[in-house]
Protein backbone atom coordinates (compact mmCIF):
# COMPACT_ATOMS: atom_id res chain seq x y z
CA UNK A 1 0.00 0.00 0.00
CA UNK A 2 1.51 3.29 -0.97
CA UNK A 3 1.43 6.39 1.13
CA UNK A 4 -1.44 7.80 -0.85
CA UNK A 5 -3.60 4.87 -0.10
CA UNK A 6 -2.55 4.83 3.45
CA UNK A 7 -4.30 8.06 4.06
CA UNK A 8 -7.50 6.47 3.08
CA UNK A 9 -7.78 4.42 6.18
CA UNK A 10 -9.88 4.93 9.18
CA UNK A 11 -7.87 6.67 11.79
CA UNK A 12 -5.89 9.49 10.51
CA UNK A 13 -5.12 10.46 14.04
CA UNK A 14 -3.11 7.38 14.32
CA UNK A 15 -1.27 7.85 11.11
CA UNK A 16 -0.07 11.16 12.24
CA UNK A 17 1.27 9.83 15.45
CA UNK A 18 2.44 6.43 14.56
CA UNK A 19 2.83 5.38 11.02
CA UNK A 20 5.67 7.66 10.23
CA UNK A 21 4.30 8.93 6.99
CA UNK A 22 6.28 12.05 6.37
CA UNK A 23 4.01 13.52 3.75
CA UNK A 24 0.87 13.01 5.66
CA UNK A 25 2.67 14.13 8.77
CA UNK A 26 3.53 17.36 7.14
CA UNK A 27 0.03 17.72 5.95
CA UNK A 28 -1.04 16.94 9.43
CA UNK A 29 1.19 19.52 10.94
CA UNK A 30 1.13 22.29 8.48
CA UNK A 31 -2.04 21.85 6.57
CA UNK A 32 -4.04 20.05 9.20
CA UNK A 33 -5.89 23.24 9.82
CA UNK A 34 -7.44 22.91 6.39
CA UNK A 35 -10.84 21.50 7.14
CA UNK A 36 -12.55 19.79 4.21
CA UNK A 37 -16.23 20.62 4.33
CA UNK A 38 -17.04 17.85 1.88
CA UNK A 39 -15.29 15.18 3.91
CA UNK A 40 -16.81 16.58 7.08
CA UNK A 41 -20.28 16.53 5.57
CA UNK A 42 -19.92 12.88 4.69
CA UNK A 43 -18.62 11.81 8.10
CA UNK A 44 -21.32 13.79 9.89
CA UNK A 45 -23.79 11.92 7.70
CA UNK A 46 -22.07 8.60 8.27
CA UNK A 47 -22.25 9.14 12.00
CA UNK A 48 -26.00 9.60 11.73
CA UNK A 49 -26.21 6.48 9.57
CA UNK A 50 -24.28 4.32 12.02
CA UNK A 51 -26.27 5.52 15.02
CA UNK A 52 -29.35 4.74 12.92
CA UNK A 53 -28.05 1.18 12.59
CA UNK A 54 -28.37 0.73 16.34
CA UNK A 55 -31.36 2.98 16.98
CA UNK A 56 -33.72 1.88 15.75
CA UNK A 57 -32.14 -0.50 13.18
CA UNK A 58 -30.57 -3.23 15.27
CA UNK A 59 -33.13 -2.76 18.04
CA UNK A 60 -35.90 -3.58 15.58
CA UNK A 61 -33.97 -6.34 13.85
CA UNK A 62 -33.46 -8.09 17.18
CA UNK A 63 -36.75 -7.00 18.73
CA UNK A 64 -38.80 -8.65 16.02
CA UNK A 65 -37.03 -11.96 16.52
CA UNK A 66 -37.87 -12.44 20.19
CA UNK A 67 -41.20 -13.29 21.75
CA UNK A 68 -43.83 -10.62 22.17
CA UNK A 69 -43.30 -10.63 25.93
CA UNK A 70 -39.63 -9.74 25.57
CA UNK A 71 -39.64 -7.21 22.78
CA UNK A 72 -39.31 -4.13 24.96
CA UNK A 73 -36.46 -5.62 26.92
CA UNK A 74 -34.44 -5.85 23.73
CA UNK A 75 -35.28 -2.31 22.72
CA UNK A 76 -34.40 -1.14 26.21
CA UNK A 77 -31.08 -2.92 26.11
CA UNK A 78 -30.14 -1.21 22.86
CA UNK A 79 -31.19 2.20 24.16
CA UNK A 80 -29.45 1.84 27.49
CA UNK A 81 -26.26 0.61 25.94
CA UNK A 82 -26.28 3.57 23.60
CA UNK A 83 -26.68 6.06 26.41
CA UNK A 84 -24.19 4.53 28.80
CA UNK A 85 -21.46 3.74 26.30
CA UNK A 86 -21.72 7.22 24.84
CA UNK A 87 -21.02 8.80 28.18
CA UNK A 88 -18.19 6.37 28.84
CA UNK A 89 -16.75 7.13 25.44
CA UNK A 90 -16.55 10.75 26.43
CA UNK A 91 -15.21 10.07 29.89
CA UNK A 92 -12.40 7.79 28.84
CA UNK A 93 -13.00 5.13 26.23
CA UNK A 94 -12.20 7.39 23.30
CA UNK A 95 -8.95 8.28 24.92
CA UNK A 96 -8.17 4.64 25.70
CA UNK A 97 -8.79 3.74 22.08
CA UNK A 98 -7.35 6.67 20.17
CA UNK A 99 -4.95 8.71 22.25
CA UNK A 100 -1.28 7.99 22.40
CA UNK A 101 -0.32 5.17 24.71
CA UNK A 102 1.26 1.76 24.49
CA UNK A 103 0.85 -0.83 21.78
CA UNK A 104 -1.97 -2.30 23.82
CA UNK A 105 -4.04 0.58 25.04
CA UNK A 106 -4.14 4.36 24.72
CA UNK A 107 -3.73 6.78 27.58
CA UNK A 108 -6.17 9.12 29.28
CA UNK A 109 -4.88 12.33 27.80
CA UNK A 110 -8.10 12.86 25.88
CA UNK A 111 -10.44 11.94 28.71
CA UNK A 112 -13.46 14.26 28.62
CA UNK A 113 -12.11 15.41 25.27
CA UNK A 114 -9.47 17.33 27.13
CA UNK A 115 -7.87 19.88 24.84
CA UNK A 116 -10.28 19.40 21.98
CA UNK A 117 -11.69 22.66 20.67
CA UNK A 118 -13.98 23.64 17.85
CA UNK A 119 -10.94 23.88 15.62
CA UNK A 120 -9.25 20.59 16.52
CA UNK A 121 -8.91 18.45 13.48
CA UNK A 122 -8.37 14.78 12.96
CA UNK A 123 -6.99 14.63 9.45
CA UNK A 124 -9.15 17.09 7.59
CA UNK A 125 -12.31 16.66 9.63
CA UNK A 126 -13.06 18.11 13.07
CA UNK A 127 -11.94 15.85 15.89
CA UNK A 128 -15.46 16.09 17.33
CA UNK A 129 -16.69 14.40 14.18
CA UNK A 130 -14.07 11.67 14.34
CA UNK A 131 -14.96 11.15 18.01
CA UNK A 132 -18.64 10.82 17.17
CA UNK A 133 -18.14 8.54 14.21
CA UNK A 134 -15.97 6.16 16.23
CA UNK A 135 -18.41 6.32 19.13
CA UNK A 136 -21.16 4.86 17.02
CA UNK A 137 -18.96 1.79 16.50
CA UNK A 138 -18.35 1.51 20.23
CA UNK A 139 -22.13 1.57 20.72
CA UNK A 140 -23.15 -1.01 18.18
CA UNK A 141 -20.58 -3.60 19.20
CA UNK A 142 -21.95 -4.38 22.67
CA UNK A 143 -25.45 -3.92 21.27
CA UNK A 144 -24.77 -6.76 18.86
CA UNK A 145 -24.03 -9.09 21.77
CA UNK A 146 -27.56 -8.51 23.10
CA UNK A 147 -28.75 -11.08 20.60
CA UNK A 148 -26.89 -13.85 22.40
CA UNK A 149 -28.49 -13.47 25.82
CA UNK A 150 -31.87 -12.14 24.72
CA UNK A 151 -34.97 -13.27 26.61
CA UNK A 152 -33.19 -14.26 29.81
CA UNK A 153 -30.62 -11.77 31.09
CA UNK A 154 -31.34 -9.46 34.01
CA UNK A 155 -31.30 -5.82 33.06
CA UNK A 156 -28.80 -4.68 35.65
CA UNK A 157 -26.47 -7.56 34.89
CA UNK A 158 -26.71 -6.74 31.22
CA UNK A 159 -25.77 -3.14 31.84
CA UNK A 160 -22.86 -3.92 34.10
CA UNK A 161 -21.59 -6.51 31.65
CA UNK A 162 -21.79 -4.08 28.74
CA UNK A 163 -19.91 -1.40 30.62
CA UNK A 164 -17.08 -3.68 31.66
CA UNK A 165 -16.93 -5.21 28.24
CA UNK A 166 -16.62 -1.83 26.54
CA UNK A 167 -13.81 -0.88 28.89
CA UNK A 168 -11.84 -4.09 28.92
CA UNK A 169 -12.55 -5.53 25.50
CA UNK A 170 -13.70 -2.94 23.02
CA UNK A 171 -11.47 -0.01 23.86
CA UNK A 172 -8.19 -1.95 23.94
CA UNK A 173 -8.90 -3.96 20.81
CA UNK A 174 -9.95 -0.80 19.02
CA UNK A 175 -6.56 0.60 20.00
CA UNK A 176 -4.73 -2.48 18.73
CA UNK A 177 -6.30 -2.25 15.30
CA UNK A 178 -7.12 1.39 14.68
CA UNK A 179 -5.52 3.43 17.44
CA UNK A 180 -1.90 2.75 16.61
CA UNK A 181 -1.61 -0.52 18.49
CA UNK A 182 0.34 -3.61 17.67
CA UNK A 183 -2.00 -5.14 15.10
CA UNK A 184 -2.10 -1.95 13.14
CA UNK A 185 1.66 -1.81 13.22
CA UNK A 186 1.76 -5.36 11.98
CA UNK A 187 -0.27 -4.40 8.91
CA UNK A 188 -3.64 -5.91 9.75
CA UNK A 189 -6.21 -4.87 7.18
CA UNK A 190 -9.48 -4.17 8.93
CA UNK A 191 -11.23 -1.39 7.14
CA UNK A 192 -14.38 -1.01 9.19
CA UNK A 193 -14.38 -3.55 11.96
CA UNK A 194 -14.15 -7.20 10.97
CA UNK A 195 -12.07 -7.86 14.06
CA UNK A 196 -12.87 -4.79 16.18
CA UNK A 197 -16.62 -5.14 15.84
CA UNK A 198 -17.67 -8.51 14.46
CA UNK A 199 -15.10 -10.93 15.83
CA UNK A 200 -15.32 -9.35 19.26
CA UNK A 201 -19.12 -9.27 19.32
CA UNK A 202 -19.37 -12.76 17.86
CA UNK A 203 -16.97 -14.40 20.28
CA UNK A 204 -18.47 -12.54 23.22
CA UNK A 205 -21.88 -13.78 22.10
CA UNK A 206 -20.71 -17.36 22.03
CA UNK A 207 -19.14 -17.16 25.46
CA UNK A 208 -22.15 -15.41 26.92
CA UNK A 209 -24.56 -17.94 25.47
CA UNK A 210 -22.52 -20.77 26.96
CA UNK A 211 -22.15 -19.15 30.37
CA UNK A 212 -25.78 -18.05 30.61
CA UNK A 213 -27.21 -21.37 29.50
CA UNK A 214 -30.23 -22.07 27.35
CA UNK A 215 -33.61 -20.41 27.48
CA UNK A 216 -36.12 -22.70 29.10
CA UNK A 217 -37.51 -25.06 26.54
CA UNK A 218 -34.68 -24.65 24.03
CA UNK A 219 -34.45 -26.29 21.55
CA UNK A 220 -37.73 -28.20 21.86
CA UNK A 221 -40.20 -25.35 22.18
CA UNK A 222 -40.88 -23.47 18.98
CA UNK A 223 -39.95 -19.81 19.33
CA UNK A 224 -41.12 -18.10 16.19
CA UNK A 225 -40.19 -14.42 15.84
CA UNK A 226 -43.07 -12.36 17.16
CA UNK A 227 -42.92 -9.78 14.40
CA UNK A 228 -40.94 -10.46 11.26
CA UNK A 229 -42.08 -7.20 9.72
CA UNK A 230 -40.20 -5.46 12.51
CA UNK A 231 -37.13 -7.55 11.80
CA UNK A 232 -37.24 -6.81 8.10
CA UNK A 233 -37.69 -3.12 8.82
CA UNK A 234 -34.60 -3.22 10.99
CA UNK A 235 -32.78 -5.15 8.29
CA UNK A 236 -33.48 -2.45 5.74
CA UNK A 237 -32.15 0.15 8.14
CA UNK A 238 -29.04 -1.92 8.75
CA UNK A 239 -28.36 -2.20 5.06
CA UNK A 240 -28.67 1.54 4.52
CA UNK A 241 -26.81 2.38 7.70
CA UNK A 242 -23.95 0.11 6.73
CA UNK A 243 -23.21 2.54 3.91
CA UNK A 244 -22.11 4.92 6.64
CA UNK A 245 -20.35 2.19 8.58
CA UNK A 246 -18.13 1.08 5.73
CA UNK A 247 -18.34 4.09 3.43
CA UNK A 248 -17.68 6.44 6.31
CA UNK A 249 -14.63 4.47 7.34
CA UNK A 250 -12.84 6.10 4.44
CA UNK A 251 -13.06 9.22 6.61
CA UNK A 252 -13.73 11.26 3.53
CA UNK A 253 -16.02 11.63 0.54
CA UNK A 254 -13.80 10.14 -2.09
CA UNK A 255 -13.19 7.17 -4.37
CA UNK A 256 -12.43 4.89 -1.46
CA UNK A 257 -15.71 5.80 0.22
CA UNK A 258 -17.58 5.20 -3.00
CA UNK A 259 -15.90 1.88 -3.64
CA UNK A 260 -16.36 0.80 -0.02
CA UNK A 261 -20.05 1.52 -0.30
CA UNK A 262 -20.22 -0.31 -3.60
CA UNK A 263 -18.53 -3.48 -2.41
CA UNK A 264 -20.59 -3.38 0.77
CA UNK A 265 -23.76 -3.34 -1.24
CA UNK A 266 -22.66 -6.06 -3.60
CA UNK A 267 -21.61 -8.33 -0.76
CA UNK A 268 -24.93 -7.81 1.01
CA UNK A 269 -26.70 -8.74 -2.21
CA UNK A 270 -24.51 -11.80 -2.58
CA UNK A 271 -25.35 -12.86 0.96
CA UNK A 272 -29.08 -12.53 0.32
CA UNK A 273 -28.81 -14.61 -2.80
CA UNK A 274 -26.65 -17.42 -1.47
CA UNK A 275 -28.49 -17.83 1.84
CA UNK A 276 -31.77 -17.94 -0.07
CA UNK A 277 -30.40 -20.55 -2.43
CA UNK A 278 -29.24 -22.66 0.50
CA UNK A 279 -32.76 -22.56 1.89
CA UNK A 280 -34.26 -23.51 -1.43
CA UNK A 281 -31.83 -26.39 -1.63
CA UNK A 282 -32.46 -27.61 1.90
CA UNK A 283 -36.12 -26.72 2.55
CA UNK A 284 -37.52 -26.03 -0.88
CA UNK A 285 -38.47 -22.43 -0.18
CA UNK A 286 -36.62 -19.19 0.51
CA UNK A 287 -37.71 -17.21 3.54
CA UNK A 288 -37.52 -13.51 4.19
CA UNK A 289 -35.78 -14.16 7.49
CA UNK A 290 -33.22 -16.16 5.56
CA UNK A 291 -32.82 -13.34 3.07
CA UNK A 292 -32.17 -10.70 5.70
CA UNK A 293 -29.87 -13.01 7.65
CA UNK A 294 -27.87 -13.58 4.50
CA UNK A 295 -27.78 -9.83 4.08
CA UNK A 296 -26.29 -9.36 7.54
CA UNK A 297 -23.82 -12.13 6.84
CA UNK A 298 -22.77 -10.43 3.62
CA UNK A 299 -22.47 -7.07 5.34
CA UNK A 300 -20.54 -8.32 8.34
CA UNK A 301 -18.18 -10.31 6.19
CA UNK A 302 -17.31 -7.50 3.79
CA UNK A 303 -16.76 -5.06 6.65
CA UNK A 304 -13.03 -5.67 7.19
CA UNK A 305 -12.44 -5.92 3.45
CA UNK A 306 -14.56 -3.04 2.28
CA UNK A 307 -11.84 -0.50 1.55
CA UNK A 308 -9.47 -3.01 0.04
CA UNK A 309 -11.35 -5.26 -2.36
CA UNK A 310 -13.01 -4.69 -5.71
CA UNK A 311 -16.52 -5.49 -6.92
CA UNK A 312 -15.67 -8.98 -8.17
CA UNK A 313 -14.08 -9.92 -4.88
CA UNK A 314 -17.03 -8.46 -3.02
CA UNK A 315 -19.47 -10.60 -4.95
CA UNK A 316 -17.52 -13.72 -4.05
CA UNK A 317 -17.21 -12.64 -0.43
CA UNK A 318 -20.95 -12.10 -0.18
CA UNK A 319 -21.82 -15.39 -1.80
CA UNK A 320 -19.39 -17.27 0.42
CA UNK A 321 -20.65 -15.46 3.53
CA UNK A 322 -24.22 -16.58 2.90
CA UNK A 323 -23.24 -20.20 2.52
CA UNK A 324 -20.77 -20.42 5.40
CA UNK A 325 -22.93 -18.53 7.87
CA UNK A 326 -25.93 -20.65 6.87
CA UNK A 327 -24.08 -23.83 7.75
CA UNK A 328 -22.63 -22.27 10.89
CA UNK A 329 -26.08 -21.27 12.11
CA UNK A 330 -27.46 -24.73 11.58
CA UNK A 331 -24.46 -26.33 13.20
CA UNK A 332 -24.46 -24.20 16.35
CA UNK A 333 -28.20 -24.56 16.80
CA UNK A 334 -29.01 -28.06 15.65
CA UNK A 335 -25.80 -29.95 16.31
CA UNK A 336 -24.11 -28.18 19.21
CA UNK A 337 -27.44 -27.04 20.71
CA UNK A 338 -25.93 -23.77 21.87
CA UNK A 339 -28.64 -21.21 22.55
CA UNK A 340 -27.12 -18.09 21.04
CA UNK A 341 -30.65 -16.74 20.86
CA UNK A 342 -30.41 -14.60 17.75
CA UNK A 343 -27.41 -16.33 16.13
CA UNK A 344 -24.87 -13.61 16.76
CA UNK A 345 -21.85 -15.88 16.65
CA UNK A 346 -22.61 -17.84 13.48
CA UNK A 347 -23.51 -14.67 11.59
CA UNK A 348 -21.32 -11.91 12.97
CA UNK A 349 -18.54 -13.93 14.50
CA UNK A 350 -18.08 -16.34 11.65
CA UNK A 351 -18.65 -13.55 9.14
CA UNK A 352 -16.04 -11.39 10.84
CA UNK A 353 -13.52 -14.19 10.85
CA UNK A 354 -13.86 -15.27 7.26
CA UNK A 355 -14.17 -11.66 6.12
CA UNK A 356 -10.93 -10.67 7.80
CA UNK A 357 -9.18 -13.62 6.22
CA UNK A 358 -10.67 -13.01 2.78
CA UNK A 359 -9.66 -9.35 2.97
CA UNK A 360 -6.11 -10.69 2.88
CA UNK A 361 -6.84 -12.57 -0.30
CA UNK A 362 -9.05 -10.26 -2.32
CA UNK A 363 -7.02 -7.15 -1.62
CA UNK A 364 -4.48 -8.64 -3.99
CA UNK A 365 -4.22 -6.56 -7.15
CA UNK A 366 -3.39 -9.60 -9.21
CA UNK A 367 -6.61 -11.58 -9.27
CA UNK A 368 -8.04 -10.33 -12.55
CA UNK A 369 -11.71 -9.48 -12.21
CA UNK A 370 -11.49 -10.33 -8.51
CA UNK A 371 -8.61 -7.93 -7.83
CA UNK A 372 -8.47 -5.50 -4.96
CA UNK A 373 -6.46 -2.40 -4.28
CA UNK A 374 -3.28 -3.69 -2.70
CA UNK A 375 -1.71 -5.16 0.42
CA UNK A 376 -0.75 -3.34 3.59
CA UNK A 377 2.50 -1.47 3.48
CA UNK A 378 5.51 -3.75 3.55
CA UNK A 379 3.47 -6.81 2.61
CA UNK A 380 3.61 -8.15 -0.88
CA UNK A 381 1.89 -11.49 -1.11
CA UNK A 382 -1.45 -13.02 -0.31
CA UNK A 383 0.14 -15.52 2.03
CA UNK A 384 1.92 -12.89 4.12
CA UNK A 385 -1.18 -10.78 4.27
CA UNK A 386 -3.42 -13.71 5.20
CA UNK A 387 -0.93 -14.62 7.89
CA UNK A 388 -1.29 -11.16 9.44
CA UNK A 389 -5.05 -11.39 9.10
CA UNK A 390 -5.06 -14.75 10.86
CA UNK A 391 -2.97 -13.35 13.67
CA UNK A 392 -5.47 -10.52 13.98
CA UNK A 393 -8.41 -12.89 14.16
CA UNK A 394 -6.75 -15.21 16.64
CA UNK A 395 -5.52 -12.44 18.89
CA UNK A 396 -8.75 -10.51 19.03
CA UNK A 397 -10.84 -13.66 19.28
CA UNK A 398 -8.81 -15.23 22.04
CA UNK A 399 -8.51 -12.10 24.08
CA UNK A 400 -12.22 -11.42 23.71
CA UNK A 401 -13.13 -14.94 24.73
CA UNK A 402 -11.04 -14.92 27.86
CA UNK A 403 -11.94 -11.40 28.91
CA UNK A 404 -15.65 -11.91 28.28
CA UNK A 405 -15.64 -15.02 30.41
CA UNK A 406 -13.87 -13.20 33.22
CA UNK A 407 -16.24 -10.26 33.04
CA UNK A 408 -19.28 -12.53 33.24
CA UNK A 409 -17.85 -14.21 36.31
CA UNK A 410 -17.24 -10.85 37.95
CA UNK A 411 -20.72 -9.64 37.16
CA UNK A 412 -22.16 -12.86 38.54
CA UNK A 413 -20.52 -12.08 41.86
CA UNK A 414 -22.53 -8.89 42.04
CA UNK A 415 -25.89 -9.91 40.62
CA UNK A 416 -27.35 -13.06 39.11
CA UNK A 417 -26.99 -13.01 35.34
CA UNK A 418 -30.37 -14.55 34.65
CA UNK A 419 -33.88 -13.69 35.64
CA UNK A 420 -35.78 -16.30 37.62
CA UNK A 421 -37.70 -18.99 35.81
CA UNK A 422 -41.00 -17.34 36.67
CA UNK A 423 -39.76 -14.04 35.33
CA UNK A 424 -38.60 -15.74 32.17
CA UNK A 425 -42.05 -17.27 31.75
CA UNK A 426 -43.80 -13.99 32.41
CA UNK A 427 -41.46 -12.22 30.04
CA UNK A 428 -38.78 -9.62 30.60
CA UNK A 429 -40.97 -6.70 29.61
CA UNK A 430 -43.19 -7.03 32.63
CA UNK A 431 -40.63 -8.47 34.99
CA UNK A 432 -37.80 -6.05 34.24
CA UNK A 433 -39.62 -2.97 33.04
CA UNK A 434 -43.30 -3.14 34.03
CA UNK A 435 -44.39 -2.50 30.48
CA UNK A 436 -46.08 -4.31 27.64
CA UNK A 437 -45.18 -4.03 23.99
CA UNK A 438 -48.63 -4.02 22.50
CA UNK A 439 -52.22 -3.23 23.43
CA UNK A 440 -53.70 -3.65 19.97
Amino acid at each position, binding site marked *: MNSLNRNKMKSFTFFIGVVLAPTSLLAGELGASELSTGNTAWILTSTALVLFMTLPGLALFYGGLVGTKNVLSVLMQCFSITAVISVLWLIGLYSMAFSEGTAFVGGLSKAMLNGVTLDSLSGDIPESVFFMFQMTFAIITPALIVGAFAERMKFNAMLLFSILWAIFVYAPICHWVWGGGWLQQMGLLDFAGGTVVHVTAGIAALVTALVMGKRSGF*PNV*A*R*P*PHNLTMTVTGAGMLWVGWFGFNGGSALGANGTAGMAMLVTHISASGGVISWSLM*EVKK*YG*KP*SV*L*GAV*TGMVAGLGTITPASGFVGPGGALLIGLIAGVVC*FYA*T*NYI*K*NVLHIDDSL*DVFPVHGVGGIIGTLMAGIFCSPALGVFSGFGFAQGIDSISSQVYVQAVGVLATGTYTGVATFAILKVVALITPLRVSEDEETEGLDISQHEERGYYL
Partner: protein
Amino acid sequence: MKKIEAIIKPFKLEDVKTALKEGGFFGLTVAEVKGFGKQMGHTELYRGAEYQIDFVSKLMLTLVVDDDMRDKAIEIIVEAANTGKIGDGKIFVSSVEEVVRIRTGETGSQAL
Protein backbone atom coordinates in the same frame (compact mmCIF):
# COMPACT_ATOMS: atom_id res chain seq x y z
CA MET B 1 -83.41 -21.45 23.33
CA LYS B 2 -80.39 -23.00 21.74
CA LYS B 3 -76.82 -21.92 21.47
CA ILE B 4 -75.17 -22.82 18.21
CA GLU B 5 -71.40 -22.66 18.19
CA ALA B 6 -69.91 -23.07 14.76
CA ILE B 7 -66.22 -23.35 13.99
CA ILE B 8 -65.58 -22.30 10.40
CA LYS B 9 -62.81 -21.32 8.03
CA PRO B 10 -62.09 -17.59 8.34
CA PHE B 11 -62.63 -16.69 4.73
CA LYS B 12 -66.14 -18.12 4.91
CA LEU B 13 -67.36 -15.53 7.40
CA GLU B 14 -68.85 -13.17 4.86
CA ASP B 15 -70.78 -15.97 3.15
CA VAL B 16 -72.11 -17.33 6.41
CA LYS B 17 -73.08 -13.94 7.73
CA THR B 18 -74.88 -13.06 4.52
CA ALA B 19 -76.69 -16.36 4.43
CA LEU B 20 -77.78 -16.03 8.04
CA LYS B 21 -78.98 -12.50 7.42
CA GLU B 22 -81.00 -13.66 4.46
CA GLY B 23 -82.33 -16.47 6.60
CA GLY B 24 -83.59 -13.95 9.11
CA PHE B 25 -80.94 -14.25 11.78
CA PHE B 26 -79.85 -10.87 13.01
CA GLY B 27 -77.50 -11.57 15.85
CA LEU B 28 -74.14 -13.22 15.85
CA THR B 29 -70.91 -13.12 17.81
CA VAL B 30 -67.58 -14.10 16.32
CA ALA B 31 -64.30 -15.01 17.99
CA GLU B 32 -60.92 -15.72 16.42
CA VAL B 33 -59.68 -19.13 17.47
CA LYS B 34 -57.11 -21.70 16.51
CA GLY B 35 -58.22 -25.19 15.71
CA PHE B 36 -56.55 -28.53 15.95
CA GLY B 37 -58.10 -31.45 14.11
CA LYS B 38 -57.75 -33.61 11.06
CA GLN B 39 -56.74 -30.73 8.87
CA MET B 40 -53.00 -30.58 8.62
CA GLY B 41 -51.27 -27.43 9.74
CA HIS B 42 -48.11 -26.39 7.97
CA THR B 43 -44.41 -26.12 8.60
CA GLU B 44 -42.66 -22.93 9.44
CA LEU B 45 -38.99 -22.26 9.13
CA TYR B 46 -36.87 -19.81 11.10
CA ARG B 47 -33.14 -19.86 10.54
CA GLY B 48 -32.71 -23.58 10.49
CA ALA B 49 -35.37 -24.23 13.12
CA GLU B 50 -38.18 -25.90 11.24
CA TYR B 51 -41.32 -26.94 12.99
CA GLN B 52 -44.79 -28.14 12.52
CA ILE B 53 -47.67 -25.80 13.30
CA ASP B 54 -50.61 -27.99 14.22
CA PHE B 55 -53.06 -25.19 14.76
CA VAL B 56 -55.07 -23.68 11.98
CA SER B 57 -56.85 -20.31 12.10
CA LYS B 58 -60.58 -20.64 12.53
CA LEU B 59 -63.50 -18.52 13.59
CA MET B 60 -65.95 -19.55 16.27
CA LEU B 61 -69.44 -18.21 15.70
CA THR B 62 -71.88 -18.05 18.57
CA LEU B 63 -75.51 -17.73 17.73
CA VAL B 64 -78.39 -18.05 20.13
CA VAL B 65 -81.75 -18.87 18.54
CA ASP B 66 -85.23 -19.92 19.43
CA ASP B 67 -85.70 -23.65 19.62
CA ASP B 68 -87.64 -23.81 16.40
CA MET B 69 -85.02 -21.95 14.44
CA ARG B 70 -82.27 -24.30 15.46
CA ASP B 71 -82.39 -26.59 12.47
CA LYS B 72 -82.74 -23.80 10.00
CA ALA B 73 -79.68 -22.06 11.42
CA ILE B 74 -77.64 -25.24 11.29
CA GLU B 75 -78.66 -25.88 7.75
CA ILE B 76 -77.74 -22.41 6.64
CA ILE B 77 -74.36 -22.55 8.28
CA VAL B 78 -73.53 -26.00 6.94
CA GLU B 79 -74.38 -24.91 3.47
CA ALA B 80 -72.60 -21.57 3.52
CA ALA B 81 -69.45 -22.75 5.30
CA ASN B 82 -68.95 -25.91 3.33
CA THR B 83 -66.04 -26.21 0.94
CA GLY B 84 -65.95 -30.01 0.97
CA LYS B 85 -62.38 -30.00 2.17
CA ILE B 86 -61.02 -31.21 5.47
CA GLY B 87 -61.12 -28.55 8.12
CA ASP B 88 -64.51 -27.08 7.30
CA GLY B 89 -65.30 -27.27 10.98
CA LYS B 90 -68.00 -28.33 13.38
CA ILE B 91 -71.21 -27.11 14.84
CA PHE B 92 -71.99 -27.67 18.51
CA VAL B 93 -75.51 -27.18 19.79
CA SER B 94 -76.47 -26.79 23.42
CA SER B 95 -79.31 -25.51 25.53
CA VAL B 96 -79.57 -22.00 26.85
CA GLU B 97 -81.70 -21.39 29.89
CA GLU B 98 -82.10 -17.72 29.70
CA VAL B 99 -81.26 -14.75 27.55
CA VAL B 100 -81.18 -11.13 28.72
CA ARG B 101 -80.85 -8.01 26.64
CA ILE B 102 -78.62 -5.68 28.60
CA ARG B 103 -80.04 -2.51 27.14
CA THR B 104 -83.63 -3.19 28.16
CA GLY B 105 -83.47 -6.02 30.63
CA GLU B 106 -85.85 -8.01 28.40
CA THR B 107 -85.51 -11.75 28.73
CA GLY B 108 -86.28 -14.87 26.73
CA SER B 109 -87.09 -14.85 23.04
CA GLN B 110 -87.74 -11.16 23.09
CA ALA B 111 -84.17 -10.55 24.06
CA LEU B 112 -82.83 -12.13 20.91
